[in-house]
């Protein structure tokens, strides 16, 4: 039975590669074919799981190098802030979004406002559109997960390029940092945090699970003082919805700005033209 013999030869060949697979020492292509075999070979599947389980213990032997404590503390702080923002999406009340007259410090806005976007009503209107985006997003993530399992290089390349940009960006820490959690007006589909270091005028924005926008559209980040939106940056999340923006921008340390994200035409707008996808305000 040639078929059986062939299948068995294949099995033996892949069997021998499982150790290398467990420690990720295969090329993408090799890994892909090994995983294809493993998917329909119970014995190899069990063996690969066992190998991975114990091979992961090798990490305990990672060379111990001194960690930059400030760096580690910064990551911890950002994680906690992101996690808190992630689980409290409905803290943004309509009251917070309505600016009081005393707050209006900068009246240099054109009279013709395209959208009266800083209102609770506008936020409510965006919920439906956002829900649609989120379900689309889920599909994308699932397909990305599948691709990931096959270690398709596109995601890796995107990640790599993103990190390159990120590496050039400085981040922030210290007692002068204000944390602004941004939330979407619906139950936690997306979330973001802005860190404002009032001592160094450094602003760092981190968002996750952002839906992919339509072609020709871009995300735009705004700082709103009183009723005056100031564009901070246009940005695009990576394939997994992660984005980080870091800029230096002086602002009165006592200011209580709002931070908002909108979906704008490519290149961005001078004033927001759509309802914000996420908003947040400096508290206390």
């Amino acid at each position: 039975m040639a078929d059986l013999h062939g299948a068995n030869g294949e099995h033996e060949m892949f069997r021998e590669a499982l150790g290398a697979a467990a420690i990720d020492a295969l090329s993408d292509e090799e890994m892909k074919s090994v995983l294809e075999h493993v998917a329909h070979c119970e014995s190899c599947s069990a063996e690969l799981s066992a190998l991975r389980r114990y091979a992961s213990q090798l990490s305990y032997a990672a060379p111990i190098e001194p960690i930059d404590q400030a760096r580690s503390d910064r990551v911890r702080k950002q994680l906690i802030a992101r996690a808190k923002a992630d689980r409290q999406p409905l803290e943004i009340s309509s009251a917070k979004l309505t600016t009081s007259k005393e707050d209006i410090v900068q009246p240099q806005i054109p009279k013709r406002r395209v959208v009266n976007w800083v209102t609770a009503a506008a936020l409510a209107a965006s919920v439906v559109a956002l829900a649609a985006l989120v379900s689309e997003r889920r599909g994308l993530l699932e397909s990305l997960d599948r691709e990931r399992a096959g270690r398709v290089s596109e995601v890796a390349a995107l990640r790599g390029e993103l990190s390159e940009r990120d590496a050039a960006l400085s981040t922030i820490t210290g007692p002068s940092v204000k944390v602004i959690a941004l939330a979407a007006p619906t139950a936690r589909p997306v979330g973001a945090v802005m860190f404002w270091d009032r001592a160094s005028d450094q602003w760092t924005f981190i968002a996750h699970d952002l839906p992919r926008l339509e072609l020709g559209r871009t995300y735009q980040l705004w700082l709103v003082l009183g009723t005056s939106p100031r564009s901070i940056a246009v940005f695009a999340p990576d394939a997994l919805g992660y984005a980080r923006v870091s800029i230096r921008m002086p602002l009165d340390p006592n200011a209580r700005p709002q931070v908002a994200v909108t979906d704008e035409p490519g290149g961005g707008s001078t004033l927001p033209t759509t309802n914000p996808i996420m908003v947040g305000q400096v508290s206390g």
Partner: protein
Amino acid sequence: MPDTGVVSDEELLRRMHNGDADSLGRLYDRWSPLLFPLVVHLLTDPDEAEDVVQETFWQAWRHADRYDAARSDVAGWLFVIARSKALMRLRARRRRREEPLPSADAPELVAPLADPAVNAELAGRRAIVLAALAGLPPEQRHTVDLAYFHGMTQQEIAERTGQPLGTVKGRIRLALEKLRQPLAALAEGGL
């Protein structure tokens, strides 16, 4: 925030799943001292390592429910996430030819005494893994080092060391066979 060590990693994940951000902090305090060096060592870029560590814990936060105790302990799960994220970046870089492979005479795994900041259990596990690695013939140990801690593929190791690919494959296979017993015992929770 002192970690009394009373709460298990699994319990921390359960709490994280229920929205407790402080438990994420505790998990971070427990495992970031090990994840940071692992990732820095792979990527050799502290800024990128910072991103990977942050994304690793973020994934643990978002997908705490995906942890499967039957497949690994929590630390092993975190290692796998961190390592795969780091490798994706590393290999993307190498594909673009921006990243030289580490030299073949990359430093051997050494056994520095555990950092006092690292807790006793960690030090114990570390000692077991280092002992297991020390029991390998030098060429096997070196091959595992290049693959696991420098993120090189078999092919890359062969090119870099000038050894035939078949030899490299054989070394990895033999090394993992020898590591199986001590590491599997560790993975099953034995110390």
